């Protein structure tokens, strides 16, 4: 048994040495001597938020809005980068409807107009393919902290017996919710100069109900 162990260890050492030799075979450096590690970009695009399953019936399954983002990236390996991003959306509007039942009276409907504005802060790891090329595909994975501000204007039907001159009352309420969820995506960086690029990417974030948000953005940035 000890002989077997010695032989195995000896051969594994030889294997390690042979792989070390293989690792020493030449590689040509495609990274410039004054390689930059930081990049910054500003983007705009389309942001879609899915319907929460707990919400009452509403006009759309998805609400759409514009999205604006600023990001800062730091590359700590040749293909790996950490990126922080802050984004905000324009107000996405939709309606919800609820049935109100009062014993002994016909049901009435209450409608609410929602205006949701999402603000997110995202930290993600980016894997960028290829070295020092004009086009770089990339994949991202990270965590998004989202704060949704929902301004709700509700028309409250008049309390019966209503007269023809009883206007409905309007109630305005603002609800703010925060959540953290995983976000994945990918896209391309198209360099238009040595250190300036156009980026396009798509992102998808998920919660326990499935797909929560998706966004498609395009922007411009530069390396420094």
């Amino acid at each position, binding site marked *: *048994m000890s002989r077997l162990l010695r032989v195995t260890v000896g051969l594994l050492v030889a*294997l390690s040495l042979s792989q070390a030799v293989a690792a020493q075979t*030449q590689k*040509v*450096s495609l990274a*410039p001597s004054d390689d930059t590690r930081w990049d910054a970009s500003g983007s705009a695009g389309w942001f879609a938020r899915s319907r929460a399953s707990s919400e009452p019936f509403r006009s759309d399954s998805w609400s759409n809005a514009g999205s604006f983002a600023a990001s800062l990236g730091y590359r700590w390996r040749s293909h790996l980068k950490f990126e922080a991003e802050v984004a905000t959306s324009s107000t996405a509007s939709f309606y919800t409807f609820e049935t109100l039942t009062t014993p002994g009276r016909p049901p009435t409907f209450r409608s609410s107009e929602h205006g949701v504005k999402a603000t997110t802060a995202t930290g993600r790891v980016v894997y960028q393919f290829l*070295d020092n090329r004009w*086009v770089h595909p990339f994949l991202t994975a990270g965590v998004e902290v989202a704060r949704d501000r929902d301004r709700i204007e509700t028309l409250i039907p008049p309390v019966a017996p209503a007269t023809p001159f009883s206007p409905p009352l309007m109630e305005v309420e603002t609800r703010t919710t925060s959540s953290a969820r995983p976000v994945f995506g990918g896209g391309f960086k*198209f360099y238009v100069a040595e250190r300036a690029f156009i980026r396009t990417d798509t992102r998808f974030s998920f919660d326990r109900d499935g797909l929560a948000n998706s966004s498609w953005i*395009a922007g411009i940035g530069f390396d420094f």
Partner: protein
Amino acid sequence: MRTNQRVVAVIVLCAVIAPVNGMAQTGSDADTWRSFVQNVPVGTELDVRLRSGQRFRATVVRATPDTVMVLPKTRVPVPVQPVAYDDIASLERHEQRGMSGGKAAAIGVASGVGGFFGAMLIVFALIGD
């Protein structure tokens, strides 16, 4: 037990020997690449594959007895670098097939710019609602 020892020894020996054989480059291969490089004009674009697995496109700058000096084609310029003939797995003269790199880049950039302005139009349309 002895059979087991032999099996383990053979397996590990194969693991050691196989990559070494795979990496082995005979002197005649190096001579072949030396001869190839000496017969292409300076300034020729080559598709280079090294024994390390790295692939890149480069322009031949100068040939020496042991190395070929190449300028890799990159976005941000990099220095001219020597590549030992022993480390070359393959060399091919780069042929312009179909669309040139410039055209492909232009299409890529145009797509990116188009996408960007398309996104902006979507954003403005949504804001206008």
